[in-house]
């Protein structure tokens, strides 16, 4: 039996490894998707004051620090047992929507656009952001603009781009100024125009990807995500809903502190990442997906007019639930539209300028859970503290964790379709990494080297002898 290993060549910790197992006739026998991740996190934070957790956990990830700040601060709010001021809640939501826009724009324009615009089999040397800039300069410019729009909101709020310590337990550190609000409102129309343009372009281009839509992780799974009581898509608040493979609601209105009644975590061999599953169905039947696609499947509607129209069209074209992982890209674009509408609504509310933005409190509860929808999916922070507020136990369930098993299965599906025999072909390598990219997993390497996931595939025979090897340059 031969083994193909796809291993990223990266200097940073936290990377993915794909092992493709071939049988004697050169067909795919099985695949495994491994993520190495920050380990011993629980040990590391033991004894720290709980209110330091937002700062500490947001350093886990350089791509979506705001998600950790939000989930962590919500867990701290619960420990302090405070209700945060209404303006603070709106401001947190505003920062969150801005991050959603910038993170999705990064995923779409920088990481996936090379595949989508230039083609999976195009020349590898130019299949990157620079290639996109050369071939589709308007598109590349749009991507940069949209990302900048999101980042500037965060900057305006937090005065720091990457790790804003502005979201704090009890609310936010400082109120929003009228000047910053007006500046955002002034840039909003052009951001909305970009989102609209990109979405129209993508919808037209979808016909070129019939093959990918069909085999890119189209195996049905359950889906999970947050919705409000009316079934509207929720990023910051809301309760967890699970839908079955065929689309029925199997569980609804799960509050943050009840997550452990419904989600259990299996430890995987050779992987530091745990695999969460829906408890009542057991492992691995209870495997579910989270993230933009799952949110589209879980919600009844988005709750804002433009996004709702897109939501309807999305499901008309691909059914409900839609299962192909390729549609994550589509869902991401709809969510950008929704997030921009949300930003507009939030800023239109005069309450957002109120000066009271932070509640204070000591330890009023020995346990707290914070749950949000990060760009990549449901994120849960769960802490236990002693009477003095020192952390005694911490558990984080991250989006890539929920999707772990599904990504593995999608890789298998793509491999089966594109890998045959003992020779490795470049287009195959890229398709395997493209399906991983569709989930936009939160790996340090996913933004490495001009949007390429740096990886190496090795074909190794039963005796460990190298048969063939290709790698991204």
């Amino acid at each position, binding site marked *: 039996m031969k083994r193909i290993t796809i291993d990223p060549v990266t200097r940073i910790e936290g990377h993915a490894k794909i092992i493709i197992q071939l049988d004697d006739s050169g067909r795919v026998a099985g695949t495994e998707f491994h993520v190495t991740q920050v380990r011993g996190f629980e040990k590391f934070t033991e004894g720290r*004051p709980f*209110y330091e957790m937002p700062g500490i956990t947001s350093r886990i990830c350089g791509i979506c620090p705001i998600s950790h700040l939000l989930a962590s601060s919500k867990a701290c709010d619960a420990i302090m047992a405070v209700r945060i001021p209404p303006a603070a809640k709106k401001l947190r939501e505003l920062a969150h929507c801005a991050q959603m826009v910038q993170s999705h724009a990064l995923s779409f324009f920088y990481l996936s656009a090379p595949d989508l615009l230039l083609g999976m089999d195009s020349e590898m040397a130019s299949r990157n952001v620079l290639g996109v800039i050369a071939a589709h300069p308007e598109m590349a410019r749009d991507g940069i603009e949209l990302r900048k729009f999101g980042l500037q909101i965060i900057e305006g709020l937090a005065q720091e781009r990457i790790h804003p310590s502005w979201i704090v337990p009890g609310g936010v*550190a400082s109120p929003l100024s009228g000047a910053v609000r007006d500046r955002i409102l002034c840039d909003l129309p052009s951001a909305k125009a970009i989102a609209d343009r990109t979405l129209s372009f993508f919808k037209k281009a979808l016909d070129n990807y019939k093959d990918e839509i069909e085999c890119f992780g189209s195996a049905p799974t359950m889906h999970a995500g947050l919705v409000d009581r009316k079934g509207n898509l929720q990023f910051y608040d809301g309760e967890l809903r699970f839908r079955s493979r065929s689309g029925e609601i199997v569980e609804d209105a799960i509050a943050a502190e009840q997550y452990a009644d419904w989600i259990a975590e299996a430890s995987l061999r050779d992987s530091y990442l745990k695999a969460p599953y829906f408890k009542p169905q057991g492992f691995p039947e209870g495997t579910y997906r989270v993230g933009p696609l799952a949110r589209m499947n879980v919600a009844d509607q988005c709750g804002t007019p433009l996004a709702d129209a897109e939501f309807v069209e999305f499901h008309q074209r691909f059914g409900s639930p839609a299962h192909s992982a390729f549609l994550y890209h589509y869902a991401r674009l709809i969510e950008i539209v929704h997030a921009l509408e949300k930003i507009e609504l939030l800023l239109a509310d005069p309450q957002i300028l109120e000066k009271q933005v932070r509640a204070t409190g000591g330890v009023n509860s020995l346990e707290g859970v914070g749950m949000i929808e990060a760009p990549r999916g449901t994120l849960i922070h769960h802490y236990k503290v002693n009477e003095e507020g020192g952390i005694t136990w911490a558990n984080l369930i991250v989006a890539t964790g929920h999707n772990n098993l599904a990504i593995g299965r999608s890789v298998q599906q793509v491999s089966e379709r594109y890998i045959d025999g003992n020779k490795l072909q470049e287009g195959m390598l890229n398709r395997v990494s493209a399906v991983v990219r569709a989930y936009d997993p939160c790996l340090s390497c996913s933004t490495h080297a001009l949007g390429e996931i740096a990886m190496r595939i090795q074909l190794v025979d039963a005796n460990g002898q190298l048969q063939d090897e290709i790698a991204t340059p």
Partner: protein
Amino acid sequence: MPKKKLSIRIDGELINAVEGQTILQAAKANGKYIPTLCDLEGLTPVGACRLCIVEVSGTDRLFQACTTPIQDGMSVITTSARLTHDRRISLELLFVERNHVCAVCVSNGRCELQSLASAMGISTVRFAYNYPKLGVDLSHPRFVLDHNRCILCTRCVRVCADLEGAHVWELTSRGIHSRIVSDLNQRWGDSRSCTNCGKCVQACPTGALAEKGYAVEEMVKRTDNISSLVERREVQV
């Protein structure tokens, strides 16, 4: 009786000073900069950090400016390759000794240790990190002590003894095992002598002592109440 005037040279420049001043005091009074870390005006100097070292003509030894009294005719050098080298090593050793994670610290951006390091261009250290396992004392209702960030400057010990007169803080053990303790090694929250005045927190140059509830970068230390007390101390009524 008026104090005797002395004249010394600092970096070649002739300076009028007063008997009883330390090199650091004379330098400060004449606008000369010498880096310090454990020194805080008004507290008994102890020479714990070795950052204020200077060269003195006629001897090969280095002297701590904060604890060395001036002598008439003394010639002091405050900047040289040798001094820079030694100061850097002192700072690097402070960083490797405990767990200083600036990115998640309440004092990030306002820490004296950090700003000295960046002024000296230290971005990496040449020694292996010690990674000691140290605790955080959260027992006090208002304040928190994080041993991971303590550099043993003893400012807290001295401000509590010299200004508040409560003598809560002490040093225990020796060498690498040294630690500050409150009330003969009780938890801070159980201390009967602590008056909750918070002077130690304000005097601490790092995030080791902080007010509770502050997020990353939020702790602003205020030493103005300490310096006004020091001024008032000199006033005869």
